[in-house]
């Protein structure tokens, strides 16, 4: 055979890893979703094999697609020959319930990791400042100043000015003075 035909045969039989992600409509029930995933599984198994399947669940979309604000995200890791990619694309394009899809070639050393479902570790929680209710000001406790009991004032008789003058004169003239 010529070199060109040999090269075409090799590229057709070569298996390559791909990642497929598509969004389903949110109005589907769980039984319908399981049915759709089974159909896709059988469609792929005819030509290759499925490495990993994951249903990410319902998420909110960043913008509206076909009058839908939410969507069910599904991720597949598959290994198929390079000539089968066009048919996968066509299958997802025709599907009425799949509103968006993306096919990506897997780089070397790729492992699937789940994002968005990791819980915060305790360190990160402690680093974050806790949200507390409005702090009420503490009442400042002051020592009660015990004032000494006030002695009753000796009011006495309020002296009138006239009496004072008379008193003075008496004292100055009196015999008791010792100067």
């Amino acid at each position, binding site marked *: 055979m010529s070199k060109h035909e040999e090269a075409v045969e090799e590229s057709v039989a070569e298996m390559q890893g791909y990642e497929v992600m598509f*969004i389903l409509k949110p109005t589907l029930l769980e039984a319908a979703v399981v049915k759709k995933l089974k159909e896709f599984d059988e469609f792929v198994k005819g030509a290759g094999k499925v490495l990993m399947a994951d249903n990410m669940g319902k998420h909110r979309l*960043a913008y509206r697609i076909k009058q839908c604000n939410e*969507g069910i995200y599904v991720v597949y890791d598959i290994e198929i020959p390079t000539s089968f990619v066009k048919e996968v694309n066509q299958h997802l394009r025709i599907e009425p319930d799949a509103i*968006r899809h*993306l096919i990506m070639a897997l780089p070397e050393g790729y492992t699937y*990791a789940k*994002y968005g479902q*990791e819980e915060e570790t305790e360190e990160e929680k402690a680093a974050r400042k806790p949200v507390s209710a409005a702090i009420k000001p503490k009442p400042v406790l002051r020592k009660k100043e015990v004032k000494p009991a006030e002695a009753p004032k000796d009011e006495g008789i309020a002296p009138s000015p006239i009496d004072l003058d008379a008193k003075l004169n008496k004292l100055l003239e009196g015999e008791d003075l010792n100067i």
Partner: protein
Amino acid sequence: MAKYIFSTNQKFPPGKRRCTFCTNQMENIDYKDVKTLKHFTNAFQKIKGHYYTGVCLNHQKKLSQAIKRARHMALLPFVN
């Protein structure tokens, strides 16, 4: 998910800025981890240049490709 993220490297002069993906030893950037990708976009959800974030050129090309894929799959918005 990158452990150490340097997204605002403007405090340091250009010679002292470090690439987050080189320090974490990440060769491939995943379009699914929205938490790291959000650090490299500004308030209007535009991609920041690598002069301001300190990312090296090879990783900046992969970063922009990952952000564009996430936008296509409605994980990130195009516009605020």
